[in-house]
């Protein structure tokens, strides 16, 4: 019990020493990481490396939500799972790995799909949401819920040889949301999953590691920057590896989620979400099974 009075355990000083000696983190930043609660939505190609580095860095509470089980076809890129875990729920497999990497954080398993019906209660306890999902409907659902709950999102995606990353609603109340950037979903016929289109492991891996980096930066900083412009990082592995930083728009005044739509009835509110009036799957126009990959 005496440990309760120490801000950091001796084991934590040993583990985090290499990052605590950096002025960008420091002792105060490490304490902020310890007090932080992160939800990782999707324990797949993005969520695997993101969870590993977030747990390694000592974020105090880490929730993971995924309804899927580990398959052989995951293992070229979902590197926190393993052959001996095939058939196990990805959440359980992930937490088994993470506890051995770092036993100090509190790990919260959510072995279920994220839906319009459960998103509000599931996201509520967390400070930051990592969108590591595989479908537009989930990306809109996470964004709408995070806007209602006033939480930032680190969102990434990958397909074949390309990746994209953007930090949304940061700081909460000022940065754009997913709908500000993409007010309307793409036609369902143009949406390709990693299962259909293919994916190179290190491509999705690099995007997941960069999500962890943005999460650690956001959670350890003393305060949000005063003037923050939103940028999107895009990555392409071929022909030459190339990253590019794009300057994105700010909030859309008439955004149905974070703004004031012309018709107030269009506003996505907590009440509308709770009453089940917001159907993200229908909005994205797909009847295909929606999964977290």
């Amino acid at each position, binding site marked *: 019990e005496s440990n309760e009075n120490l801000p950091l355990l001796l084991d934590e000083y040993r583990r985090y020493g290499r990052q605590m000696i950096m002025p960008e983190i420091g002792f105060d930043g490490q304490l902020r990481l310890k007090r932080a609660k992160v939800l990782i939505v*999707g324990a*797949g*190609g*993005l*969520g695997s490396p993101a969870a590993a580095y977030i747990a390694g860095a000592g974020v105090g509470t880490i929730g993971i939500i995924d309804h899927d089980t580990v398959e052989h076809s995951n293992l070229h890129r979902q590197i926190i799972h393993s052959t001996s875990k095939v058939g196990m729920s990805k959440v359980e497999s992930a937490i088994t790995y993470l506890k051995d990497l770092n036993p100090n954080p509190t790990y919260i398993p959510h072995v279920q799909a994220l839906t319009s019906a459960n998103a509000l209660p599931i996201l509520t306890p967390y400070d930051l949401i990592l969108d*590591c*999902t*595989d*479908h*537009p409907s989930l*990306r809109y659902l996470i964004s709408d819920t995070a806007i209602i709950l006033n939480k930032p999102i680190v969102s*990434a*995606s*990958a*397909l*074949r040889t*390309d*990746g*994209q990353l953007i930090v949304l609603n940061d700081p909460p109340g000022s940065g754009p949301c997913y709908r500000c*950037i*993409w*007010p*309307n*979903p*793409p*036609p369902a016929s*143009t*949406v*390709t*999953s*990693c299962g259909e*289109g293919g*994916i190179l492991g290190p491509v*999705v891996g690099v995007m997941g590691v960069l999500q962890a980096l943005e999460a650690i930066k956001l959670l350890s900083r003393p305060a949000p920057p005063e003037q923050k412009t939103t940028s*999107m990082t*895009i990555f*392409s592995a071929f022909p030459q590896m190339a990253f*590019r*930083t*794009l*300057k*994105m*728009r700010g909030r859309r005044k008439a955004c149905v989620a974070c703004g004031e739509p012309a018709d107030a009835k269009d506003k996505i509110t907590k009440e509308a979400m709770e009453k089940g009036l917001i159907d993200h799957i229908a909005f994205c126009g797909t009847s295909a099974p929606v999964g*977290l*990959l």
Partner: protein
Amino acid sequence: MGEEATLPITVEFSGGLELLFSKQKTHKVQIPASDPSGKPANVGFLVGWLCDNLMVDKRKDMFVMDGTVRNGILVLINDADWELEGEDEYVLEKGDNILFVSTLHGG
């Protein structure tokens, strides 16, 4: 026909859109400096011009819908969201870089 003034610009495709354009990510093109009505070429005109002159894949609805770039494609003018630059009304200048990014959803 007399000489037509042209404008040299760079057009780039990312996120899989290059598959519609000869699988080539970067295109240096000379576009007409004015549209058929005589107005200076803007991004809206460029989008139509690309469909007619650069697109190899015939599935135009993978790129345009209802007269503009389809949902899920971001347009960047010199690496800035086109909404910061006037969207399709932005008048092209010599040397501009126009990047079309298909949004990815996989993970």
